[in-house]
């Protein structure tokens, strides 16, 4: 029937002609087997870093924020830089689990579980900074609109920091629920395969008594869709609100209307870079190369080109607007970013965020695991510098030159940052040994093979 149009058959997302059983075996192996040497080494390093970070944090709480490098002019520095960076990193998970779900992007199924876990760990790391960067962290609960005995005292709904409180806590709770919901069928699978009663008991509780009936599945799908619907605006709103911390202020270099889209694009950009960094290692270490294939990597790289370019255009637009507005404070703020004392931070940002991702236009680079890994690291660094540039170089020279100062971090705040990286990896490493890192149940829905092979055989 030569007149019939036959759609081009897409490459399979899962390589290796897996059967359902093979998949279950592959993905449950890290949970059921023993950890290898690499896992233990990584865990030890991450755990040590985390402990060091907590020590620094305890020292800060004991002595005061003065143990950091901030001063009368630069009130926020590494703390909020790290906060925004971590929050940004979380965004890839939400995008993958929510928006890509709604757009029926099946390739997301290989990576969404880890990406969502990453979101949760990143938000935990991020949350530490605003919680502990306050002068009196034991009073942080005053930022919640709690009925109280202090008379008519209430929170200030005009303050972007309060919006942050709501945005981040909503984000965290929705992400956590969504992630855990997705885990239920897989936890049930692990439960069913358990050989020891303790394990079976624990996974039994964790899987909330999942039976795999049609009703279970029906409800599962419905709730997933609802949560995806809830998460989708969060992808845009959380970082928009974080950007309001800066955009609604009057500091030259912060007070910019471009911030919300620019921050969201930047967040997804950095989030995907972190997903790539982690997945490239994880697929190797956990033997999941057939599940997270080059195709996945290439698709993610394409998102990186897109978001990286948006970020690049945003940088250039900011510069243009600084000049075009004719506001001397703003023009100076941007000249100072590029040519002032923190020029190295600005140019690190430009190189890492604008130039390196453009290399992905070459198919060869985009499909090279090594090149992707290196560039993803560059993007992570670049995005950290972006936040540093926005926060520190805008603050350190604002309106009155008499107050212009320099800022440099102390080892305490560097320690806390290193500690959050340790915390993140500790959590992720534990996660990779406790939960299936790939959404097994979901993935099983897409391994159905095409009939092509039979066609060729002429049956």
């Amino acid at each position, binding site marked *: 029937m030569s007149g019939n149009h036959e759609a081009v058959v897409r490459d399979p997302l899962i390589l290796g002609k897996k059967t359902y059983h093979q998949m279950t075996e592959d993905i449950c192996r890290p949970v059921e087997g023993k950890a290898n040497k690499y896992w233990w080494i990584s865990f030890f390093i991450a755990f040590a870093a985390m402990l060091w970070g907590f020590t620094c944090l305890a020292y800060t709480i004991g002595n005061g924020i003065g143990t950091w490098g901030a001063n009368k002019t630069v009130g926020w520095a590494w703390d909020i830089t790290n906060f925004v960076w971590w929050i940004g990193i979380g965004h890839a998970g939400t995008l993958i689990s929510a928006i890509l779900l709604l757009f029926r992007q099946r390739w997301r199924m290989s990576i969404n579980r880890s990406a969502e876990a990453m979101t949760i760990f990143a938000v935990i790391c991020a949350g530490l900074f605003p919680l502990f960067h306050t002068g*009196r962290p034991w009073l942080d609960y005053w930022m919640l609109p709690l009925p109280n005995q202090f008379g008519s005292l209430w929170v200030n709904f005009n303050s972007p920091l309060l919006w942050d409180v709501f945005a981040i806590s909503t984000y965290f709770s929705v992400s956590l629920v969504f992630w855990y919901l997705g885990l239920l069928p897989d936890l049930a699978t692990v439960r069913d395969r358990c050989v020891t009663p303790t394990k079976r008991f624990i996974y039994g509780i964790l899987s909330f008594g999942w039976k795999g009936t049609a009703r279970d599945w029906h409800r599962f799908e419905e709730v997933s869709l609802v949560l995806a619907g809830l998460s989708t605006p969060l992808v845009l709103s959380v970082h928009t609100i974080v950007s309001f911390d800066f955009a609604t202020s009057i500091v030259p270099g912060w007070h910019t209307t471009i911030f919300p889209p620019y921050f969201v694009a930047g967040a997804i950009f950095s989030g995907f870079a972190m997903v790539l960094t982690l997945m490239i290692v994880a697929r190797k270490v956990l033997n999941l190369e057939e599940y997270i294939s080059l195709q996945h990597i290439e698709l993610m790289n394409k998102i990186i080109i897109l978001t990286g370019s948006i970020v690049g255009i945003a940088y250039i637009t900011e510069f243009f607007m600084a000049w075009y507005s004719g506001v001397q404070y703003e023009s100076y703020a941007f000249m100072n970013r590029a040519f002032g004392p923190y020029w190295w931070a600005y140019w690190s940002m430009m190189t890492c965020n604008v130039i390196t991702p453009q290399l992905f236009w070459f198919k060869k680079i985009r499909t090279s695991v090594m090149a992707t890994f290196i560039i993803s690291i560059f993007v992570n660094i670049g995005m950290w510098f972006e936040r540093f540039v926005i926060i520190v170089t805008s603050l350190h020279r604002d309106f009155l030159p008499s107050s212009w100062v320099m800022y440099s971090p102390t080892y305490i705040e560097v320690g806390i940052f290193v500690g959050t990286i340790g915390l993140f990896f500790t959590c992720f490493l534990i996660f990779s040994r406790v939960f299936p890192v790939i959404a097994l149940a979901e993935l099983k829905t897409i391994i159905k093979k095409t009939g092509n092979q039979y066609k060729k055989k002429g049956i």
Partner: protein
Amino acid sequence: MRGKNISGLKDHQDPKMEKKYWKGVEELQNDAEFVRLKNNEFYENLPLDEVIGKKAEESNLTPRRDFLKFLGFGVAAASLAACEAPVRKTIPYLIRPEQIVPGIANYYASTYFDGYDYASLLVKTREGRPIKIEGNPLSSVTKGKVSARVQASVLSLYDNARLRGPMMNGNAAPWTNIDKAITDKLTAIAAAGGKIRILSSTVISPSTLKVIEDFSKKYPTTKHIQYDAISCSAMIQANKESFGVSVLPTYSFNKANVIVAFDCDFLLNWISPVEYASQYAETRKLNSGRKEMSKHYQFESALSLTGSNADVRTGIKPSQQLSYIIALHNAIASKAGAKSAGSATADGKVIEKLAEELWSNKGKSLVVCGINDASAQKLVNSINSMLGNYGSTIDLDNASNLRKGNDADLAMLLDEADKGEVAALFFYNCNPVYTLPNGEAFAKSMNRIDLSVSFADRPDETASVCKFICPDNHPLESWSDAEPRKGVYSTGQPTISPLFDTRQMQESLLAWAGTPAVFHDYMAANWKAWAPEATWDKIIQDGVYEKTASSPSSYSFNADVSGISESKAAGAIEVVVYEKAGVGNGAQANNPWLQELPDPVSKITWDNYLAVSPKDAREKGWRQGNIVTVKTAKAAVNVPVLIQPGQTPGSVSIALGYGRTKAGKTADNIGWNAYPLVSMVNGLLSYSATAEILKTADEDYVFAATQSHHTMMGRAIVKETSLEEYKKNPNAGNEEELFEVKVGKEISKKPANEVTLWDEHELGNHHWGMSIDLNSCIGCGACVVACTAENNVPMVGKDEVMRSREMHWMRIDRYYSSDFDPKEGEKGDVKLMENPSDMPRVVFQPVMCQHCNHAPCETVCPVIATSHSSEGLNQMIYNRCVGTRYCANNCPYKVRRFNWFRYSDNPKFDYNMNNDLGKMVLNPDVVVRSRGVMEKCSMCVQRIQETKLNAKKAGRKIKDGEFNVACAQTCPTNAITFGDYNIPDSKINQMWKPKERSYHLLEELNVQPNVFYQTKVRNIEESREA
């Protein structure tokens, strides 16, 4: 109840015939039920079973709830015990002392003079503690104004380094033993005819002089020598030679249209700076009615505060000073037809023009000279005499007493001490081992003095080598009188009884003279004789006693100056020493408020340094922070380099008062001692010398500066114009900026404050505001210390200032002009604007919280810890603050200060808030902020509240000017005006309404501050465009 026979019942008594008491009729009747119950303590069993017994276990009636109750109580009790706040004992008055009402301040008139700074005071005391120094407005000398150093002296009272009692040979000893030992020695010395010497700084107290006289009568070999570390001896000598009177004149800067100063920092350190500054400012006030101001020329080497304020400043090296004075003298002499002095090389153009202006302002001009050189002073006398200034701006009849040091006497004493001829030496208000050029040699010669006694309040450099230390009371613990100017007296009364076992120096001397007396009685007796018409109580209450000044007569100059010619050989590099606003001559160096007060010009705290000109630094390859050795003929000092714009090339300068070794924890080993660079030239102490500078270390010594960027970057922050422009247009330099606004299709131009998204705050009865006249502000920093004292501002130390974390609520910004103007800057490299000129113009701008009506800080605080009051104040609620620091980030003026650490009771910040003694200075009306909260200027809200309450009690409205904020109150130049916009004709409205010079800082942001500034006007001809 006593048992009673109930009728019908027979007696029921036991065999011993004692009375029996029954519990009731039942017992009497031996009721069976009663007998059974009698054995139980309670009528019914307590329901204990239900709670703890077996029954409780069986039933579930109450235990769960009770358990929870017990648990709750237990936890609460345990945690309450754990959170117990530290106990601070307050002891209430059992019998309330008369005059003291807890919570209400008492003010006592007093006097401060430490041989260096003079002020007539009102001391604010709370519950018996002096906590704040304010000026006595009755004084015609200081007129209610107080300098930074005198403001800070209240903290020196509570200095932990003070001696607790007298010392004999390094050990504590009771006064009786000391008195006996000293009297014995004195008697022996007097019998042997040994020389007894009292070395003091200037003494202006007539009663003290009388005490010394009495002492000398008893011991006739006594001689009193007055010595000022920073001496004006040459002036006294020159006046003697010129006019036959050995006095310092009293100046009237306010009567001068042209003021010329040669190396004379008269606004900050010279003789009576507060007096001069307020007179000077009078000539600089401009308003709708007054459009003339004085013109100020300054010739100097280092960039002094006075030089920074000059209209025309000429940088000259110390060796050129005499040349310029001669040149000016000759230029004037040629106009006056008088004899000229020797020839001199000087910049003829400047001198010619200056002579022209002086001549046209004859009798309304003033030439002053701060050089301790008799020739220079004689020439200046001659110039003033030719200009007819004696009798108008200079008054020799009502002479000033504030510097009486005689260098010749000092030289003689040093010679005697060197030869070992001095048998007894007393040190009062002076520290020669530290302040003498050859202090170490002097310390050695003291070994040979039989009896050496110091009255210092601490074992300082001199006292520690004395055999006896007999600590004097702090001025605030003493009775005192003073005669700062002939016929003008002020008195001091103790504001607290002596904190330690100290004794007034006068009482000590009287005791040793064999006529022990209470100094109060001694003084009262004197005053009865001196001022018979006035009552003692009235004098003490007012704190001043002033006779009507005789009108000054003009003096004819009769010294020969024709022989004076340039003599000093010019060196390649010349070093000049000067004093800083805070530490001054170093006597109060152990005062953290003064150490942390930024130098008005360099903005550096906690250090001195060698200021070098940018030109020399470029040529010689010195970088900031390099350590160099300054070598003069007799001494060498190692000191780090500071590149100081405005320093005359070829000269370097270094501040005195640092490098103390025995002043106390705060001051010891801070900075470098520059006194060895002072030398004795022609019998006079000379404060400049030829020097050689050798770079010894390439290291980068870091200074703790509160300002690290020095130019305005082409921004209209301090608005400035010339007098000529201002006369043409009172808005000059302050033209209204309009912004294009499009509403619908209509485009209009509006000022920033009319373009707003915000609703106005509703204002109540008051609307507080402040005006700062940049034309009056000289940048001296008195306000900064006053604010520190009033508001319990913590000191943070050098390290923290280096991290830009100073806590001062108000700061004085200082900007240098740059050679690149904004227009050029836009074309060229913006960075060029960051470089100040080599010889810049300087502007000062006090900045504190601007109390914005549309405050950016208020909107961003998540917990509303900063809010707007109904009186226009931006309030900080410390209790509510969690410390996000968002408000500080969003403050365009960067006036918010964060408590990075706990600054009180923290050994890392070992200043006055870390010890119980130092804490006595704290103002009980202002809370000491805890760690982690934001703070800032509150416009002295405690004073506002106090005044409001007083007015309310009296049932009246607050009058304009009824009270003042601490900064405005102390400002010697009245640059700061505080008031209420809601009073229609208030002073602040009069300043704001004409809208001539007044402007809001960063007006374009439309934050609508309640503080406004007034344009600075320079008396220069060149227009702004030129």
